[in-house]
């Protein structure tokens, strides 16, 4: 499509960041580029970065909304450290993102917005386009506002409406840079603005104008091409972690034959799971938007008693409110899946920023001896499988499961090879048949130690559950000293034995190396990328990344031996490392912690490991 085919540079991967005012439509621009990336056959991952205010003051740094995409011919595990290309729709978005681009990044700006007033709002003392701030960068100054107006001049739109398509001009330029076909995006306009053909035409005209602007001005020394990735054959889609979580639960509902009951209260960054599940009435989802976090979980416990796949979704502050009710699910030994999309804490903390904040809370945040299964999803796509497995473990072992995801993987997206639901492991809840003479409320499976599930409405199985301690087997209220000790031990042992039903822990790399990186949950992509780069550089480094935390996989102790140094990397002050020190005290664990509301960067992980290697 380009007239400059002789200057096409092939890249293995690239990172683009689209940034603008929160009303500039950057999320849409990013997602349209993602669609085009899928069409081009690349692997990719994305991450949106937006302010917690819906419309922060226009033109200010705090009002900047961004969307980053990392795409490649190679496997992509993260949304990328630093951007190779920055699209900045105003001075504030340039200012906000200067720390997040490479030294030689190409910067495309809407030069029309670099007025004295806007520069002042962004906090610039002088014009960065003129004062040498951007030395070393290729800067494309595009008068996007003016050109957008011209592109739609024949359509007689008012200026305000016309300017709404500005983001498509920027997208057009980037399409040109990366030799993308813009026609498939036209289809999106035709569907999205079906009711308003004029807007369809405007967007088409502006996108095309942006594309030819890129071609005409010869600002780019090269254009770029990223060849299709070597992905396995199959059907793919793009998915965010929250969407994948919701779908994993739906798949578990279908395979277990238990309809979903979701009791939830809206909370950032978990709300999309509630929004998605409540859409799917056709799949028999009962979703209650509860009056508070407590009502969310307790209604789910009621539904669990009655035979539903009970779910509640929340974030850190909400998990705190649910603590007492989780204890109720522990003592009644009812299945429930509690999903905590972690965010920066404590208290309200950093609602839109990610953190591995709640491991302690998930493991220990209840009164009494109240063990639950704790697991953590690894990536946006893994949210699907983790939600499925959490449901399977809860239903088959009759216990609460806390699944930790986080803001990064919940809002981030990646390429998802769509599985067939029939290919997932079966889920067989221990439902008691009517009039089973052998039924006793707390009579247990001798392997799993789980009790069975007798559903109200079933003849011959009437029984009472509750928060008071019960005697083993019969389930009558009991404060007998020995019985209490037995029940506490049984509930703990039941969770411990889950280790016999989960996969063994694996090491990526070697059984013996100088450094073993240890991590858990949503940092998987960046840890893996750092590992791959270090090993490509010939370093003696391995990685073990945990998904199952309570209980730990059976071979964890074995896995950890054989390394000169172990470094546990977390987005907190060391919650997992202290848990390891408690569970498996014989190793010396070093730690690397960052707690800034930001993900790890590959470069800083590598620096840390290199420092450890140099000290050997």
């Amino acid at each position: 499509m380009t007239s400059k085919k002789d200057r096409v540079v092939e890249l293995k991967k690239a990172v683009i960041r689209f940034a603008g005012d929160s009303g500039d439509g950057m999320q849409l621009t990013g997602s349209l580029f993602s669609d085009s990336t899928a069409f081009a056959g690349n692997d990719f991952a994305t991450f949106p970065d937006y302010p917690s205010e819906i419309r922060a003051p226009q033109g200010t740094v705090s009002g900047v909304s961004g969307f980053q995409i990392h795409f490649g011919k190679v496997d992509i595990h993260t949304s990328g450290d630093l951007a190779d290309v920055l699209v900045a729709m105003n001075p504030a978005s340039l200012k906000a993102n200067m720390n997040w681009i490479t030294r030689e990044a190409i910067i495309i700006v809407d030069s029309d917005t670099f007025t004295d007033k806007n520069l002042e709002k962004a906090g610039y003392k002088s014009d960065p386009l003129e004062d040498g701030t951007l030395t070393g960068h290729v800067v494309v100054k595009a008068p996007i506002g003016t050109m957008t107006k011209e592109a739609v001049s024949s359509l007689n739109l008012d200026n305000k409406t016309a300017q709404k398509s500005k983001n498509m001009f920027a997208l057009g330029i980037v399409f040109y840079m990366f030799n993308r076909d813009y026609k498939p995006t036209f289809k999106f306009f035709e569907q999205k603005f079906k009711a308003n053909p004029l807007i369809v035409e405007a967007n088409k005209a502006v996108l095309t104008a942006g594309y030819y602007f890129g071609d005409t001005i010869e600002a780019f020394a090269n254009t770029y091409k990223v060849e299709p990735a070597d992905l396995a054959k199959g059907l793919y889609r793009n998915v965010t972690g929250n969407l994948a979580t919701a779908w994993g639960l739906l798949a578990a509902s279908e395979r277990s034959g238990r309809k979903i009951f979701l009791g939830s209260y809206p909370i950032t960054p978990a709300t999309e799971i509630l929004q998605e599940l409540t859409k799917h009435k056709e799949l028999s989802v009962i979703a209650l938007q509860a009056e508070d976090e407590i009502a969310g979980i307790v209604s789910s416990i009621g539904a669990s008693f009655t035979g539903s796949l009970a779910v509640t979704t929340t974030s850190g502050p909400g998990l705190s409110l649910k603590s007492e009710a989780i204890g109720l699910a522990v003592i009644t030994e009812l299945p429930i899946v509690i999903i905590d999309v972690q965010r920066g804490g404590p208290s309200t903390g950093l609602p839109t920023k990610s953190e591995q904040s709640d491991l302690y809370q998930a493991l220990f945040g209840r009164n009494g001896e109240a063990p639950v299964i704790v697991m953590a999803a690894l990536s946006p796509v893994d949210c699907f499988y983790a939600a499925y497995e959490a449901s399977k473990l809860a239903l088959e072992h009759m216990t609460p499961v806390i699944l930790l995801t986080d803001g990064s993987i919940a809002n981030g997206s990646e390429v998802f090879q769509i599985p067939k639901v029939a290919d997932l492991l079966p889920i067989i809840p221990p439902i008691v048949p009517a009039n089973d003479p052998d039924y006793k409320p707390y009579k247990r499976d001798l392997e799993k130690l789980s009790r069975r599930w007798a559903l109200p409405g079933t003849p011959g199985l009437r029984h009472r559950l509750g928060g008071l301690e019960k005697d083993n087997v019969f389930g009558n209220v009991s404060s007998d000293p020995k019985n209490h000790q037995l029940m506490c031990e049984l509930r703990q042992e039941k969770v411990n034995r889950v280790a016999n039903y989960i996969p063994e822990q694996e090491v990526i790399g070697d059984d013996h190396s100088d450094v073993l990186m240890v991590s858990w949950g949503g940092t998987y992509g960046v840890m893996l990328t750092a590992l791959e780069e270090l090993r490509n550089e010939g370093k003696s480094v391995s990685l073990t990344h945990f998904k199952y935390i309570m209980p730990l996989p059976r071979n964890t102790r074995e896995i950890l031996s054989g390394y000169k140094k172990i470094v546990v990397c977390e987005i907190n002050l060391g919650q997992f490392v202290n848990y390891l020190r408690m569970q498996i005290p014989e190793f010396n664990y070093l730690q690397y912690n960052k707690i800034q509301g930001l993900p790890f960067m590959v470069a800083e992980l590598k620096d840390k490991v290199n420092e450890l290697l140099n000290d050997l």
Partner: protein
Amino acid sequence: MENTIDTKKLILSKEDFGSDQMVKWCPGCGDHAILKSIENVFPEIGIPKEDFVVVSGIGCSSRFPYYMNTYGFHGIHGRAAVLATGVKLSNPKLSVWMISGDGDSMAIGGNHFIHIARRNLDINYLMFNNKIYGLTKGQYSPTTPKGSKTKTSPQGTFETPFNPGELVIGARGKFFARVVDTNLKLMTQVFRQAAEHKGTSIIEILANCVIFNNQVHALITGRETKDDSQIVLEAGKPMIFGADLDKGIVLRGTKLVVVEIGKDGITEADLLVHDPSDPDPGIHLMLANMAPPELPAALGVIRSVAAETLEEAMYESIEREKKTSKIKCVDDLLTGGGTWTID
């Protein structure tokens, strides 16, 4: 999906619902009478015994599920209403009975109380109001009359109490009744009406705590005083009360007042006729707020208005979506739209 009350009753007796657990309420506690009344009502409802679920919170009254041979769930403090909500939404076929007290419902569970009233699930909510915390041994509750001396109000309470009926109506509840633990017949009758009503039926039971708040309802329930200090409301009947049935209630201006029949030319025809089915809550609110000595306390079903239940609305929506949606299974959802193929 609602509780259909079968006219040809299943042959159940109260023995079907008695539990083998020792009842551990204090001798003389009003709760014994309530349990007895429920045991009378359940066999008459006409559904199989396995379809009853009794759910409770925390407090003396909340031990109730352990004393019934049904499916039961003794929850945590204040949360019975949401536990019951989950049970009913998950399986609307079940007859759900919720037991709670004034502390459980009005204090720690106050938020859930107003929301269950507004959501209108088909749940029967028995609120034992003894105006005191019994299980923790005698602290004031949100319904304790202002000025009462309790363990945590040695100088008398400073707080204005809730009137549960006023709260139900304020929360747009559709059914509210009041009974006393000393009138087994009325209790049984009202429980039956609650079971028949489709929606959240909230019944305030004035219950006596013999240990910590003995005789708190004595004016309303006492043999000497009750005739003049209570009125049992009946749908379609004029509001008459008193030992000689010579007193009545009329609406004068914007207030309810007591009149004597035969005095000042007042006849039965002048009295208010009770209409619990009126959606307008105005008179119901005034009735719920009546209190002796000025006005008799209203007993019986004060408000009973037909309306769609939450579970009806939700399940109808599910049936509709199942018919019209292109998505029939999760595979359809995963593969529907926005996909691409790698060959």
